[in-house]
């Protein structure tokens, strides 16, 4: 029988290393997706993912049982990814964009979808590309809020808790991020029939 998440966490707290693997299995895609969206670089996302689960393994005892594990994991992942990006920007500023964007495309479903769907409409493929690029071109703070709210479905309060800022800040960032996206995608917005 599969252990429940609460039991896995309790076992991990008590030193049962075998409880980590099921948790990794359960959340690896979420962590990778988030890390990749923030870092825009597969190698960095891989490092973030490792650091995140190592931190979970080492700090599980600090996790409050009354909190949601997923939110706690979001917080660790986002903070690890943000720290990684800041470090990376300091270290290799000049070559960042070219390498990371190419890497992003290479490791996303985006390329696979186009390759596996020869009949896909070229316009839709282009639209996907532009929408994804628009999100990726947002500043780190705006991009993080958009990802957490639009794609991960977190509430303002949860995002505020993860980013350690006020809900007002989250609302403000989301507002400006949406405006920026609307501007970047203006031609598609105008053509959209929705």
């Amino acid at each position, binding site marked *: 029988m599969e252990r429940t998440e609460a039991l896995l966490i309790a076992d991990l707290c008590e030193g049962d290393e*075998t409880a980590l693997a099921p948790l990794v*299995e359960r959340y*690896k895609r979420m962590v990778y*997706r988030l890390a990749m969206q923030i870092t825009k670089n597969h190698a960095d996302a891989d490092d973030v993912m*490792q650091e995140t689960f190592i931190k979970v393994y080492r700090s599980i005892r600090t996790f409050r049982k009354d909190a949601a594990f997923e939110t706690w994991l979001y917080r660790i992942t986002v903070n690890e990814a943000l720290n990684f990006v800041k470090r990376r920007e300091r270290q290799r500023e000049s070559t960042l964009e070219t390498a990371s964007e190419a890497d992003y495309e290479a*490791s996303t*479903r985006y390329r696979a979808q186009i390759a596996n769907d020869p009949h896909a409409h070229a316009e839709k493929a282009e639209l996907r590309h532009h929408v994804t690029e628009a999100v990726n071109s947002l500043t780190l703070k705006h991009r993080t809020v958009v990802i957490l709210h639009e794609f991960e479905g977190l509430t303002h309060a949860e995002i505020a808790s993860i980013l350690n800022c006020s809900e007002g800040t989250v609302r403000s960032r989301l*507002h400006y991020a949406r405006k920026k996206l609307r501007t970047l995608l203006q031609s598609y917005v105008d053509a959209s029939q929705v």
Partner: protein
Amino acid sequence: MRSKCDKIERLLSDYIDGTLSERQTADVALHLRSCGYCKREVVDLKKTNHLLENFYVEPEASDAYYARFTTRLQHRIEQSAPTALYQRLSAVALRLGWHLRTRLHRRIDHSRFGGFLSIRQHAFPYYIFGLTLAMLVVAPLLLNQVSPHDDGGSRLGRLYAAAKIRFFSGDSPASVQPTAALAIKQDTETGTQPADLRRNVSSGRTTETLVVDSGSDVWLFTDEPMTEGYIFTALQENDSDTVPSVALDIDSELLAYAELPAQGTFWARLTSRDVLTESRYALLLLQGMDAGQHGLQQYERKWSGFKDFSQKLLDVPLEILSIPEVYDSSEL
């Protein structure tokens, strides 16, 4: 009007999400009815959201990558684990223990009593506390049980005490002065240097505890704690249960044997094992083997429960009898 639009525009994002209060929602809706600019803004934002929802491509890695990642993560955790062999072994044992525990708990979860036992998840610290408490209570008892049959002198330390106590008949009681000496020698098996100790009963505080009555035929052995051992030298009347009376028939010598734990050890202190009890000493008459044989028989009858000690007594090494000031080996 423009300032009103600016104010409303800041709320549009929340308006779309439906996270405004009822009053704010009503205010925005009212404004939108009369403001084409803000209305278009809302429509555009909704279209933008629609594009994001339907055309944004989330990154995803292959299953092969995740498999490799899991392996690398496991490897890294193992690398960060303790490296000493005993630490690794204990980690493996812990892991195995947890595996078994988990399997047991799964079985319990399936049983009818699973609900009652689910509290176990929160009771682990109490398990440990209870186990520690049980160990503290049971271990001293076990040690006390094991000790009398344990010939582990090298572990606990073994002390041989040779006492020579000479008594005289009652012909000239006034002139008789008791002479007694005790030699304590630590067992060489323990690797420690022999510590010889002699005490003369006619001197020091020992004199006060030794009452010699040459007319008496009763001995009582008591223990007087010393730094390195005990002296069994005391005399008391009318207690024939404690010592073979034949010992007093003649000018006698006694050899006393005692087994003591190593002084100052934790368990000794904890279990008060440094207090000499009856079960841990024995006596043997040495002088006058005829009487001694008889005395030994009496002794064995009386202390039949402690034959191990009488055997040990017979094994007392001869070296302790060669302390020149106390014993003359030729006399023995």
